[in-house]
């Protein structure tokens, strides 16, 4: 029984992690067709902002919010300086953001050194017989779903969400109706970045801060978004579930490496069977 709980926990944690790291990227990709290969570095930035604000004296949860806002602002700056010149050129954005990621890693290493003190968010443990789970991890899973839910609400129930959806479906029509599409692209990129920053801040207490921490997540976020297809929320959720289940079960039953490789192979298989992603054929939804 306890083992079953642990299996479920591993799956949920893996799933939550996939959702967290991919949500921001999915919104940006779904909206503007931009693949931000610097996603990993935005995560890293979120972790560092969280660290700095804690060093400045703010408590952990306030730092998480500050980190999200900080990375959101950074995202808007990046969009203004770099991304907006490359809309429609999907390959070029891929490559330019790869350059951005190299630049960010180099910059952070130069300024802050190769490692940094970590942040702590000790919330205690929960015991199930012989097993224990860090309470923080459970909170992370919960917050991942909360973020997904909040984004859904934003999409569905607010004017902002309505305009964003409209612009996604048909940018020219939206522009013809008087929407300043450029402004909404910028805001969407900012929102996506803020979500990514949130992910980074949440991950920081678990893995610690170093300039290269993002590299481990970019491939996972990338395949989740691409496999998900054109609908950011639904696609990310379904893809994350598939990968989370695969990773959670196999990593616990076998080794981590086998788990990771299986996730990647499943991704390739999905792309082969559904060449436009899981939600590629969906006409409606988000």
């Amino acid at each position, binding site marked *: 029984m306890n083992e079953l709980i642990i299996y479920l926990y591993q799956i949920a944690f893996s799933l939550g*992690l996939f959702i967290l790291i991919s949500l921001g990227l999915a919104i940006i990709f779904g909206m503007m067709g931009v693949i931000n290969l610097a996603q990993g570095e935005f995560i890293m930035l979120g972790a560092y902002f969280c660290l700095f604000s804690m060093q400045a004296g703010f408590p952990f949860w306030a730092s998480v919010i500050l980190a999200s806002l900080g990375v959101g602002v950074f995202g808007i700056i990046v969009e203004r300086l770099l991304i907006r010149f490359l809309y429609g050129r999907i390959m070029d954005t891929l490559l330019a953001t790869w350059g951005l990621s190299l630049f960010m890693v180099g910059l952070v290493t130069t300024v802050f050194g190769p*490692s940094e*003190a970590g942040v702590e968010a000790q919330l205690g443990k929960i015991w199930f017989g012989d097993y*224990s789970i860090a309470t923080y991890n459970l909170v992370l899973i919960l917050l991942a779903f909360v973020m997904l839910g909040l984004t859904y609400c934003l999409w569905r129930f607010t004017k902002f969400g309505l305009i964003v959806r409209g612009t996604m479906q048909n940018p020219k029509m939206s522009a013809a109706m008087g929407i300043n599409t450029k402004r909404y692209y910028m805001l969407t990129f900012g929102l996506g970045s803020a979500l990514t920053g949130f992910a980074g801040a949440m991950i920081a207490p678990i893995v*610690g801060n170093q300039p290269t921490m993002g590299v481990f997540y970019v491939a996972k976020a990338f395949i989740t978004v691409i496999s998900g297809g054109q609908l950011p929320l639904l696609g990310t959720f379904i893809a994350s579930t598939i990968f989370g289940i695969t990773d959670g079960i196999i990593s*616990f039953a076998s080794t*981590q490496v086998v788990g990771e490789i299986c996730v990647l192979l499943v991704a390739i298989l999905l792309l082969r069977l559904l060449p436009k992603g899981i939600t590629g054929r969906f006409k409606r939804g988000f």
Partner: protein
Amino acid sequence: MSLLMNRRKFFHTATGALVMASSASVLKAAGADGEPIRIANILDRTGGLNIYSLKQIQAVSMAVEEINAAGGLLGRPIELVFYDSQSNNQMNSQYMTQALVRDKAAAVFAGVTSSSREVMRPIAKKFRGLLFYNSMYEGGVCDKRHVCVAQVPAQQLAPLVPAVVESYGKKAFIIGADYVYPHTTAKWIQKYTREAGGEDIGVEFFPLDVSNFGPVISRIQAAKPDVVWSVLVGSANNAFYRQYESTVGKANIPLASCMFGIGREQVYMSADEAAGIMNTTPFHDDLPTDKAQEFVRNFKAYSGEDDYVGDYAEYGYRGVNIWANAVKKAGDPNPDAVIAALDGVQFDSPGGMVTIDGQTNHAVMDIHRVITNRNQSWDHIETYSQIQPLDTQAVCDLNANPNDNKQYFLEL
């Protein structure tokens, strides 16, 4: 970090490499003049592996400075050429060749990873050079042109494992990074644990980029060991210590590690996460000897940095000094002459007396057992004197086979 220079000057040779030499006035005052002896230092100042190299780079140059200030080597100044291999093995190939062919370095102090050493050894053989590998590794290299002044697994673990079994208990669960060194180390831990009457109930390996250890921590809890050994390496793997503390806690199942600290990991973690891990090392900052404390003071003054110095810095320092003593014994900086003179060369290093064992070109040294404390440093427990590099001695005899050129792997 910055390489401070006050009495040195930096200049670029035609090769574009960074060359450091003590300024002329200092050399004159010390009585070191004449044709300089050139040595090269190839380490990763940038890239993911630089956490191991940064302090060693400074230690090497500090050692050179000190020797020059004391009159040089055989009355001649030492000139140091530095190459940044950028954690890229391809650069190691190129720079090693350049150091031997163009700079005609009398000795090259290089390499942190085993794969970098294995790339550079054949080049040392091709061009009849001398490679000082100042880093911990899995042991077994039998090559007269290679010298290792750092500890090898048998040296480190023979004192540590029995102490761990005695302190914590008989059942050990071992996890390590997935490359050759931790695999070899894990085998030694298993061997010594069994010899001490214990048993290893699980062994698992993780790639260097894994940072989510949730599944294995659950498996550890299911297996209920008395102690968990960590042979994990690198910044991503360090996440393990955080996750372990937040899930299991060292108070429930203690941790031992032969790797923790070589990347100065304890500096980046909270006291809860880092305290209480037992290890053995040839040097640590709180070693209660005069030589050790003097080295720490001098290094901090030289580098201008106040944080934990560590054993990798000390390896660089002892490497240069052992080479210098070998040159003095041989009377000639030429690599072949130095190689012939290596057996028995000694240096009273900050970590204790180090002697080169001519049979293997590895070092006999003092090993210190330590445990991490809550101040980002180590508490000294005890010192084991003059431990031999038994694992390499079992497979290598350069006296009998001077042209041996292989790395041997022990069947354990």
